[in-house]
């Protein structure tokens, strides 16, 4: 194996593999290509050495190739930024150091925003705080993303006005609304805020499947960072409380009225900054998390199905069980959506895709049972706000799950382009979620106001 040509090709391989965004399979393919060049040149009378040099030269600079591959492979904005996107794009985005300070400034703004309700009502906040949680937490994040990506006036105005409108809608109905409306609104306003944050991230690419997928990936990784920061923050608050207790002071006001809102608001922006700045860390973690939790949830589904069937009365589920069903269905859709973002673009179906299909099939069965129950409840007791909300949600989930299941069957049969179809379907559903959330927040409370 001391063939000098082989050694040179190995070196060339190792060098190309070191570039981010170039997978091992890509290098295999290019190696075959390089050897094709070398063979043709050798046949034309060049020595091994000469042929290698000319072939490498023909293949073009590794940097250029790596960038082209990264652009297609990863479809990730950050890699293009890291690799030095040419031209106008990079000039608008300030460099690393500046962006840290701006992120911290937005984080401070986010913290102050989270505490704003406490200043406005000094006697203490009640459950209505939950109504505004989404906009309070995410407005600074949206602001930071808009500053970072500069998506143009249309998207900027839509995202900011949308956020203000979501908060206003929550505020309009809150005082007059029933307790039920309070809960449904508090659950659906964050959905609107989440979609607006994705719009701010995707910018003008929000119409494209890839752009939406990037945004979904961003929010998924943002959640992972939020959980990690939240754990650290919780420990910090505990230690502060303990230290104050030891010193004979009551720290609860400080911890809950200052540390918690300021910390949470700040962490939201810092998490958004971390997703982009420390991307490669989470990029390795998200697929692992997906692979750990998808099988676990599939098992949880099976157990829940058994519980539902064992209850004997499939058409008469208790209200609590029905709610559990819905929560777990939403988790199923979330898993499918976020698993897509962690999926390797090349390669055929794996065991993991079969587990996903099992998960979705179980969810579909559960959703059918839930729907039957909701319809029976409506038949027995008439229309109420809660029942309409649950019915709409279940119908939305049923359509989504049915199409997802059929696409996963195609994926498992290795049908060409099936993964892309699934991405298009899942990201195409996002506006539908927004539309339904808007109906729940803006229309239904008025309809059911007694």
């Amino acid at each position, binding site marked *: 194996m001391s063939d000098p040509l082989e050694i040179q090709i190995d070196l060339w391989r190792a060098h190309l593999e070191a570039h981010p965004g170039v997978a091992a399979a890509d290098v295999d393919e290019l190696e075959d290509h390089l050897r094709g*060049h070398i063979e043709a040149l050798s046949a034309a009378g060049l020595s091994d050495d000469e042929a290698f040099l000319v072939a490498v030269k023909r293949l073009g600079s590794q940097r*250029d190739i790596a960038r*082209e*591959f990264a*652009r*297609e492979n990863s479809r990730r904005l950050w890699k293009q930024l890291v690799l030095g996107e040419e031209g106008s794009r990079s000039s608008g985005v300030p460099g690393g150091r500046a962006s840290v300070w701006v992120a911290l400034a937005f984080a401070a703004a986010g913290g102050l925003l989270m505490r704003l309700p406490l200043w406005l009502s000094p006697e203490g906040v009640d459950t209505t705080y939950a109504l505004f949680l989404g906009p309070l937490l995410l407005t600074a994040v949206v602001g930071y993303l808009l500053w970072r990506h500069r998506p143009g006036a249309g998207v900027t105005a839509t995202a900011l006005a949308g956020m203000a409108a979501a908060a206003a809608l929550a505020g309009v109905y809150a005082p007059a609304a029933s307790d039920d409306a309070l809960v449904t609104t508090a659950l659906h306003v964050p959905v609107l805020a989440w979609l607006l944050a994705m719009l701010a991230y995707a910018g003008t690419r929000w119409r494209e499947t890839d752009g939406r997928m990037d945004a979904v990936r961003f929010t998924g990784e943002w959640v992972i960072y939020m959980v990690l920061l939240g754990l650290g923050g919780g420990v910090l608050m505990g230690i502060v409380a303990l230290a104050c207790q030891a010193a004979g002071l009551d720290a609860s006001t400080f911890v809950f009225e200052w540390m918690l809102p300021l910390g949470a608001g700040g962490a939201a922006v810092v998490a958004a900054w971390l997703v982009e700045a420390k991307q490669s860390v989470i990029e390795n973690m998200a697929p692992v998390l997906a692979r750990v939790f998808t099988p676990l949830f599939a098992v949880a589904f099976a157990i829940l199905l058994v519980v539902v069937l064992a209850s004997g009365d499939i058409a008469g589920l208790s209200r609590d069980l029905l709610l559990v069903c819905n929560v777990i269905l939403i988790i199923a859709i979330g898993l499918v959506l976020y698993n897509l973002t962690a999926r390797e673009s090349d390669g055929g179906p794996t065991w993991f895709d079969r587990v996903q299909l099992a998960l979705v099939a179980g969810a579909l069965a559960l959703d059918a049972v839930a729907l039957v129950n909701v319809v029976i409840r409506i038949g027995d007791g008439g229309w109420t706000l809660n029942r309409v909300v649950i019915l709409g949600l279940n119908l939305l989930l049923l359509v989504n799950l049915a199409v997802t299941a059929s696409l996963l069957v195609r994926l498992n049969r290795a049908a*060409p382009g099936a993964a892309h179809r699934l991405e298009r379907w899942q990201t195409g559903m996002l506006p539908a979620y927004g539309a339904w959330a808007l109906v729940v927040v803006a229309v239904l409370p008025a309809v059911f106001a007694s």
Partner: protein
Amino acid sequence: MDIPKDLVAASAAPMVLSILSEGDSYGYAILGRVRELSDGELDWTEGLLYPLLHRLERIGHIESRWGQSETGRRRKYYALTSDGRAALATHVSQWRTVAAALENAWGRMEFGGPVSLA
């Protein structure tokens, strides 16, 4: 002749689909075929071809499998799918329309001097 980048980019996908409609092929051979079909006027870079192949595969117009070359090397072969065949048909009618319109326009034009359309 120097073909502008935009024109090369626009014609790249129909070109690859057309070549694969002749039969399964692999990267190096596809580049050779492009040169052959264009009498050496089109010289694609690898940085253009491979990402394009991967994109077409992702959207399901072509599919790939690992096989072996004549010398026993690992080689990735690409084949047209039925979606790809349909996409190619669309490309063909679009390009024919454009080409026919240009031909019509040039048919009535006088190209004096060194410029000849022959």
